[in-house]
């Protein structure tokens, strides 16, 4: 008995193998795709070069060193119209980061409160929160920004109505905060000699709280004793800073806004543009975060709560030790993308005249220098860098709380 088998073909390479042999086909496809993409890129680049030459322009970032020549109404670092475009870009970027940072904090607070209350056993509260979530989620954020701005700038609280003995409007919080239609005035700290020491003490006490938390946790693991952590931590938070503050003779004073003539002076002036943008972004993003929090909590099966109760844990400890650590794992990844969305949506500042990166670099600088290509390129790169940085940091955090699987 002999078995007939095909003799192995000579190891020649046939051109059709590029298409029909799976070993080579993937290579063929990749080469074709690569050539197509390169070709498209070259085509666009070539057009750009021709168009730039026709318009008698070149690609040059040197304009960033020139005098900007325009004013910015909100400054976190010193800037004047004599500063460079580069400086203006930095100021704009800091303004973007400021509103994004404030927005992320407020949106998280609003979102967590609304998400938890939407699960409340109280029918009325749950319905109100549903109403909030559904109305904010389904209406464009741009409309919310404009609406908040209209509320703030059209309310009947002109600065001059705060004047006199029987003023029409009053300042809030023991005459320290003035909410007017031209912005809100809040007390501003004045840093005196030795204030740095107070700040350092404060930062050290934050470190102390963290160290204390670690220590008490280890003690709990070893002995099983539960300390009243909250009060101890609050003590560490307040006492050392206050002690240093009074020992050094109150180096930090407050500048309280006061009505002088037709306007307020002193204190910190928060413009309506910042306030409207901040509130609108926070409430809008908060409605998304509320849904994320709600679905995160709902995703933890009821058996977990029951098991914790069977072990004899109190409801608060059930929440802290059983539900939240598991829910956080589900909540954090979508939360990251909401933070990113908020940061990107802050570019809508344009609608209310808040001077963020898009209004300085992508707005006035672009218009006065006429360098669209460079400005847009730089702006996109900056936004990209900010987004990637935020997502990297948050991913590191996410990995630290993620379920460790083998």
């Amino acid at each position: 008995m002999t078995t007939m088998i095909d003799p192995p073909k000579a190891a020649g390479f046939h051109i059709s193998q590029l298409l029909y042999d799976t070993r080579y086909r993937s290579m063929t496809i990749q080469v074709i795709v690569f050539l197509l993409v390169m070709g498209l890129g070259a085509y666009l680049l070539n057009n750009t070069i021709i168009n730039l030459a026709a318009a008698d322009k070149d690609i040059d970032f040197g304009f960033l060193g020139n005098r900007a020549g325009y004013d910015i109404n909100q400054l976190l670092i010193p800037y004047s119209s004599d500063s460079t475009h580069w400086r203006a870009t930095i100021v704009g970027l800091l303004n973007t980061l400021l509103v994004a940072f404030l927005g992320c904090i407020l949106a998280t607070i609003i979102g967590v409160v609304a998400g938890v209350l939407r699960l409340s056993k109280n029918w009325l509260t749950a319905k109100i929160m549903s109403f909030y979530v559904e109305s904010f989620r389904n209406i464009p954020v741009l409309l919310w920004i404009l609406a908040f701005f209209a509320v703030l700038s059209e309310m009947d609280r002109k600065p001059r109505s705060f004047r006199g003995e029987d003023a029409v409007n009053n300042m809030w919080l023991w005459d320290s905060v003035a909410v007017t239609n031209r912005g809100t005035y809040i007390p501003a700290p004045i840093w005196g000699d030795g204030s740095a020491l107070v700040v350092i003490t404060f930062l050290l006490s934050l470190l102390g709280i963290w160290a204390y938390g670690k220590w008490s946790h280890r003690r709990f693991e070893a002995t099983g004793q539960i300390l009243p952590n909250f009060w101890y931590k609050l003590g560490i938070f307040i006492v050392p800073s206050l002690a240093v503050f009074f020992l050094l003779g109150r180096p930090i004073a407050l500048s309280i806004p006061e009505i002088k003539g037709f306007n307020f002076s002193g204190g910190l002036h928060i413009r309506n543009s910042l306030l409207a943008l901040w509130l609108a972004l926070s409430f809008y993003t908060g409605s998304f975060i509320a849904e994320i929090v709600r679905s995160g909590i709902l995703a933890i099966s009821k058996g977990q709560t029951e098991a914790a109760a069977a072990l004899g844990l109190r409801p608060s400890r059930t929440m802290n030790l059983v539900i939240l650590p598991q829910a956080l794992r589900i909540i954090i990844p979508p939360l990251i993308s909401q933070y990113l969305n908020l940061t990107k949506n802050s570019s809508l500042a344009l609608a209310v005249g808040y001077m963020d990166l898009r209004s300085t670099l992508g707005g006035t600088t672009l218009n006065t220098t006429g360098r669209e290509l460079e400005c847009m390129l730089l702006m996109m790169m900056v936004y990209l860098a900010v987004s990637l940085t935020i997502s990297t940091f948050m991913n590191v955090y996410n990995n630290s709380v993620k379920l460790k699987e083998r």
Partner: protein
Amino acid sequence: MKNSKSVAFVREGMIDQQPAPASQIGAVRWLKDNLFSSVLNSILTIISLLVIFWVLSGIVPWMFGGVWNASSLSECRDILNERYGNTHYACWAVLTERWQQLLFGFYPAEEIWRAVVAFVLMLVAIAPVLFESVPRKLLWVTIAFPFLMVWLVWGGPIWGPLLVALGFVLFYVSYVVLERKSSTLLALIGSLVIGLVWWMFCVGPLSEALGSALPIGDLERVESRVLGGFMICVIIGLSGIALSLPIGLILALGRQSNLWVVKAICVGFIEFIRGVPLITLLFTASLLLNYFLPPGTAFDLTLRVIIMVTLFSSAYMAEVIRGGLAALPKGQYEAADALGLDYWQSQRLIIMPQALKISIPGIVNTFIGLFKDTTLVMFIGIFDMLGLSNAIRANSAWNGINWELYIFIGLVFWICCFSMSQYSQWLERKLRTGHH
């Protein structure tokens, strides 16, 4: 016997069933359970009631006491002063006066019927896509709709859209013919080349020649820049939705693929688009696109915006679908391989139906986001509803009117987006096959 004597009372008959105590049924029970179950809950209820009362007492009189007929804001205020003695009431007259503009932008008034017909056709066209119970024959309307819409909205002779549509037929026929002769890949490339040649070199001259020879269905041309209002949102939103799903699908597959060149390109594209705000892309479309195109190319702004919005949301779509792909158990891929299906077959028959089902909520959320983002076109000079609200305010008759317009715009968006999300929840329930 002895024991029975000591029992003072023995019931001999059954008592009738008693009604539950008043505190355990009806409204009282419901109130107790849902509003006043504990001290904390009672406090919450009272706070909620106060909030509701405060909001409603501010809004309801303002809304329902409003004026519906006036030709300007000052006339509105005169009427209100006469009626109530103050002007703390809405002036809805701006809507009765300008609703047409808010919906259709500056579309010529005698041609608005075309926009309305296109809108009704749109409803007919998407019905069979959304609901299975609608007759399948209506899918032909869906296929014809894009070309009909372009013809109805922008006008001109019918030949242009018709010839473009013919290109798709040509593409399909040549694919079928070529596939019989050679492999799938070759057929795809060949038919693509044929289609592109047809669209780029034949459609333009042919439609001009036919248009002058046989002027059938010659509607008056409407320029892109007069389009606006709700209409432009629907046009941009719908095109973006229809195009971003397939592009997103391809990007998601590319990102999952083993071919690293393809993968690198897809990852780069997705991460770049997701990292920058839409507004910078729109500004690129309006300011920079002329640099990237051959000199002298005039490119319709609406089309540029549609392309940018599509690219933007397709990157998000790709991530949503990738999530669906990742959520599928690995066994599904292996089972498809074990059955001897090739890549496209297994994607089409096994992977995609399940992955898309998982990602329905995310896909619809992306659609909703895209539709809401169409308001951003206001910044590049397209008059969408928000842009028109500024234009209306710029008119001296309506200078200073805010809330009536914002409420109208918000309501329109709310209805569209809310119904989309409700539809997605309905679809999810319908497609659920698990045992929950």
